[in-house]
């Protein structure tokens, strides 16, 4: 098991190094950012001074070296546009996205898996049919439209929930969180629901298919033949057997939703990272883009690493297969 962890940690490290290079070079090639940091009427001298100050006159590999050196010291540089440390800029936005995404995915998984397993156990009942109908709806209705309907219904017509913003926040470890206050929680509900709907539909399908398959497997037949009750079979065999695809999708969705929550964030004016990055790309705010991409890559790598560890904890074949190599 220790060998497995070390091996996976090393893989994660390699991925991060390669990612940082790709990101740096890719963004370097996108365009010249100097023009946005100097006034249009700047003299040639001012321009040269700005280029020198930003380190843009150095060769590419040296710029990368400086970038990595600073990165390792927790310095992602300053935003060209906001003229403040990138880390502060992102640090103010990322927690908002993280809490939104985490809550919506936990909700989607919890509810989706429960409904999916139910539909898998009693596939011919009316309830199962309704659940599957719901999942098709979740797949086919566009997310932005659902967002608008949610706002119209619960914020405008009923007035139960706020339509946008983060509400009241509490600082923990120097980071503001909404989900710890009642007001903040109220603000999260609608955007989280909006974000969760598609994922819930997916989890329903996944859990149902897995449950159907597991229920027809020889493992379950053998357990039944031994007189084990349906409840025990469901808890000890089926849930365990379906957990692997569900955890895989959970990890993938967690990463990609953090990276692409922008639509929901825009609709609910949620001050998350999505809006920031879109703006930064528009004005070629290079340090922000690079830092964002590197942090996103780090997030993906960490999620994958965790998912691999969870797999190893669940599946003994993964554990033994990997330690031997």
């Amino acid at each position, binding site marked *: 098991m220790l060998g497995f962890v070390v091996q996976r940690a090393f893989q994660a490290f390699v991925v991060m190094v390669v990612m940082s290079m790709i990101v740096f070079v890719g963004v370097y090639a996108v365009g010249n950012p100097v023009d946005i940091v100097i006034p249009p009427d700047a003299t040639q001298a001012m321009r040269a001074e700005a280029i020198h100050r930003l380190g843009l006159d150095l060769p590419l590999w040296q710029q990368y070296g400086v970038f990595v050196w600073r990165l390792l010291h927790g310095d992602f540089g300053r935003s060209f546009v906001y003229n403040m440390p990138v880390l502060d800029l992102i640090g103010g936005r990322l927690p908002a996205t993280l809490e939104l995404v985490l809550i919506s995915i936990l909700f989607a998984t919890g509810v989706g898996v429960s409904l999916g397993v139910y539909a898998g156990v009693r596939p*011919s009942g009316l309830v199962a049919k309704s659940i599957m109908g719901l999942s098709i709806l979740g797949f086919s209705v566009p997310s932005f439209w659902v967002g608008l309907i949610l706002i119209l219904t619960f914020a405008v017509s009923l007035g139960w929930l706020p339509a946008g913003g983060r509400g009241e926040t509490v600082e923990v470890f120097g980071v503001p969180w909404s989900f710890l206050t009642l007001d903040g929680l109220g603000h999260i509900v609608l955007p989280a629901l909006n974000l969760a709907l598609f994922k819930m539909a997916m989890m329903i399908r996944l859990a149902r298919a897995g449950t159907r398959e597991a229920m027809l497997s020889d*493992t379950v037949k*053998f357990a*039944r*033949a031994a007189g084990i009750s349906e409840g025990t079979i469901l808890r000890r065999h089926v849930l365990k057997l379906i957990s692997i695809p569900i955890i895989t999708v959970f990890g993938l969705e967690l990463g990609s939703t953090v990276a692409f929550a922008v639509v929901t964030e825009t609709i609910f004016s949620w001050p998350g990272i999505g809006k920031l990055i879109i703006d930064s790309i528009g004005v070629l705010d290079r340090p922000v883009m690079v830092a964002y991409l590197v942090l996103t890559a780090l997030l993906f790598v960490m999620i994958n690493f965790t998912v691999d560890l969870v797999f190893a904890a669940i599946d003994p*074949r993964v554990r033994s297969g990997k330690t031997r190599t």
Partner: protein
Amino acid sequence: MSAVLEVRGLRTEFLTAAGILRAVDDISFSLSAGEIIGLVGESGSGKSVTGFSLLGLIDPPGRIAGGSVRLNGAELVGMTPGELRRRRGREIAMIFQDPIATLNPLLTVGQQMAMALAAHERVSTKAAADRCTEALARVGIPSPRARLSAYPHEFSGGMRQRVAIAIALLHRPAVIVADEPTTALDVSIQAQIVAEMRSLAREFGVAMIWISHDLAVVSGLASRILVMYAGRIVEEGPAARVLRDPRHPYTCGLLDSLPAATAPGVPLRQIPGAMPSLLALPPGCAFQPRCACATPDCAVAPEMTVERDRSWRCFHPAGVASERVAS
């Protein structure tokens, strides 16, 4: 000898898109305590469905459409699911063909055995471990205590099948349905398992229904043989006599196609044709289209002919006419 299992007119049907498929049609037999009977037939003849029907494990769209299954005197057909569950594993158990698929790869062997134990008894963790160790030792698994914490993938196929057998024997059931338990194993392991099952059955007085498509495996094990074709029993009798002197042309065909019945280098003989779809059985005898002895009489379904301790379902049984001529 009293029968532990008494099956009368059992019928199991599946509701399919193309109509009602009668996978088990009017099967009757009885099994005495400690007896081993062999249930043989080609693939698709309904052997597994028969086995599952005995344990009440037919899921929709299938159902037991009629007949009676009496286990230790209690009628299983129509019993509530809860009552059936309490008997499964305790009075009647089943083992399957593929030992790789029957055990859950994510749970240790000990956990799975403990679950099977807890299904019918309240035992402490320690007592459960002792019982499971004992059960593993019984089926010939070396260092059983240590193996309790091993996962199925750490066992060979033959060892996994032994684990499944140990689970089936945990509560010392009166009857075990063994659905081709050696088909997935290689030949030397097959012989070991067969020998072990025979001695375990004798030791515990467990009666067994040994399902196989291979008459050779069954011949060394069973005292009686049931030959099944298209959902029906076409011949039944003491193993030695059925093998030496078969009555039904289908049994003759099965025997002829055994490798041992063919000289080396000569291609194996086969029964011509294939089993008809159960949804489109020919009128009369289901074997008639493939049968060399078929005559126009066979358009009517033959009833069981009973002669002393054996019976068959055929108008033109082999061996009967010649015996008469000889006598």
